[in-house]
């Protein structure tokens, strides 16, 4: 595909999603340019992981459109979608390596699925990618024998083995010690400069976000508060954004009437 001529690698428009009756995303629009690193930030329950799931096509949107490399993922045929997956790499929060396969076999999975390379070539490519993530020599181990940071790096190796144009990270540094987390940030920057990938990172780690991001999107309660460069985010005078940046607990004013209703388990106070 010919996406370098595209204006945007990822375009999300007016995305609305529900979990049961509860609305999670309320009209989210987001554009990511080619070779850009976009960080999606927000507190727990802000909808950032949900947004990632919908961009990846793991759930069908209730309203709105999602375009990856110019293809509307809910309109293209299943065969086109299948081909599009070659250009997408994802590193999940828990790594999501297949526990029944060795690290090397895990990394070869996308190659086995999408190419007709012979076994030896695949293993050479897997070793090259392990080298990129500093895990060379670990291809014969099982995922259960790796530490948390190693699992994440192996998952990144699997995500980049097809040299995808779009690379997604879900909470790359969650649960890792600061040194390993910093190494992962370096790795993300390196992947963009060396392999020219468009990268979307979902995280709530401030340091890491400011270090790697070209632009940051801040989600709160299913809405985008702001999309802008790191400077714009730092200088924003929105209170919620500043709460998030300065780790201040939310200071919402409590309406005594409403609070009473919550305690009494009433949905809405009836007016007599």
């Amino acid at each position, binding site marked *: 595909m010919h996406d370098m001529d595209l204006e945007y690698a990822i375009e999300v428009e007016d995305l609305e999603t529900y979990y049961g009756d509860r609305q999670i995303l309320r009209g989210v629009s987001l554009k990511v340019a080619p070779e850009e690193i976009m960080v999606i930030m927000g507190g727990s329950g802000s909808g950032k992981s949900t947004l990632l*799931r919908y961009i*990846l*096509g*793991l759930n069908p949107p209730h309203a709105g459109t999602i375009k990856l490399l110019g293809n509307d993922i809910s309109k293209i045929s299943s*065969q086109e979608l*299948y081909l599009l*997956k*070659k250009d*997408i790499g*994802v590193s*999940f*929060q*828990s790594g*999501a*390596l*297949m*526990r029944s396969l060795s690290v090397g076999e895990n990394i070869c*999975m*996308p190659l086995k*699925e*999408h190419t007709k390379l012979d076994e030896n070539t695949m293993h050479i490519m897997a070793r090259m990618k392990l080298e990129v993530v500093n895990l060379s020599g670990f291809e014969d181990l099982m995922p259960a024998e790796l530490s948390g940071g190693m699992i994440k790096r192996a998952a990144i190796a699997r995500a980049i083995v097809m040299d995808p144009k779009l690379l997604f990270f879900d909470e790359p540094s969650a649960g890792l010690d600061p040194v390993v987390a910093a190494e992962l940030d370096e790795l993300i920057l390196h992947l963009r400069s060396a392999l020219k990938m468009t990268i979307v990172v979902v995280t709530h780690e401030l340091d890491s976000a400011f270090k790697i991001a070209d632009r940051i999107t801040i989600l709160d309660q299913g809405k985008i508060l702001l999309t802008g460069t790191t400077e714009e985010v730092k200088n924003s005078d929105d209170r919620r954004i500043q709460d998030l940046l300065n780790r201040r607990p939310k200071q919402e004013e409590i309406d005594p009437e409403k609070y009473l209703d919550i305690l009494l388990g009433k949905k809405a106070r009836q007016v007599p």
Partner: protein
Amino acid sequence: MTTVMSGFIRFVENVGRKFVGGIAELGYVLVLFAESLYWGFVGHSRQQPVRVQSVLKEIREIGFNAVLIVSVLCMAVGAMLAIQGVATLKAFGQELRTIDLVAQATTREFASLIVGILVAGRSGSAITARIGTMHESQEIDALRVIGINPVRHLGSPVLLAMIVCVPLLTIVGYFMCIFGSGLFVSSALDIPLATYMERTLEVLTLNDVSQGLIKSSVFAIIIALVGVSNGFQVGSGAEGVGRSTTRSVVLSISFIVVADMIFTYFLNIASFS
């Protein structure tokens, strides 16, 4: 009065919700069945084949590894039938008829039923647990973003392997039931084992043997679909996996027994009239 009414309404509501849920699940299972077959037959031409290797792996797990336990159980059931047969038929002086009884009862009924229940408990639960844990650890999501259809990768191999293994295990069951019974009868009634086997081959018809095989194919489909669908629909947490696994076994065995009754009726409908 109002509490009775509201209780009744809640009851009706619950029944309705369960019913609709059941219909939805039935629909899901039928789609899963169609999709598993679709990938089995069409996957290759769409460059997304069901891997022969994964089917063989399932066959080894479901079929080959179960041969010993199927043999032991079926021998025991065969011997048990023979003991009861000799004891009851003796009253009519027909104890030699035990050979006919066991031959027909095991091929028509017992071998397939024992194998079905055993495979449901042994492999059906394992399949649900495996797919359920994969779901929990986002491995299924990982498959999907790589472009690997989870039904093709996990569902089709199980269905194909079951359809191959359960009837083959049933044939093993036939032999072992009859062998187990033969051991008892030949020593209790003092006839050579070879004579016992000759008599068995005389009484058995193609109809007897095929009844068990037809039913075992149905059981295979039931175990595969119940196991796989419960795995994909697993609730959250380790508790969810445990609950789905139990549900999978209980449902498989219940459906097997009910299907057995229905198929036995229709396969023998000619002999009632």
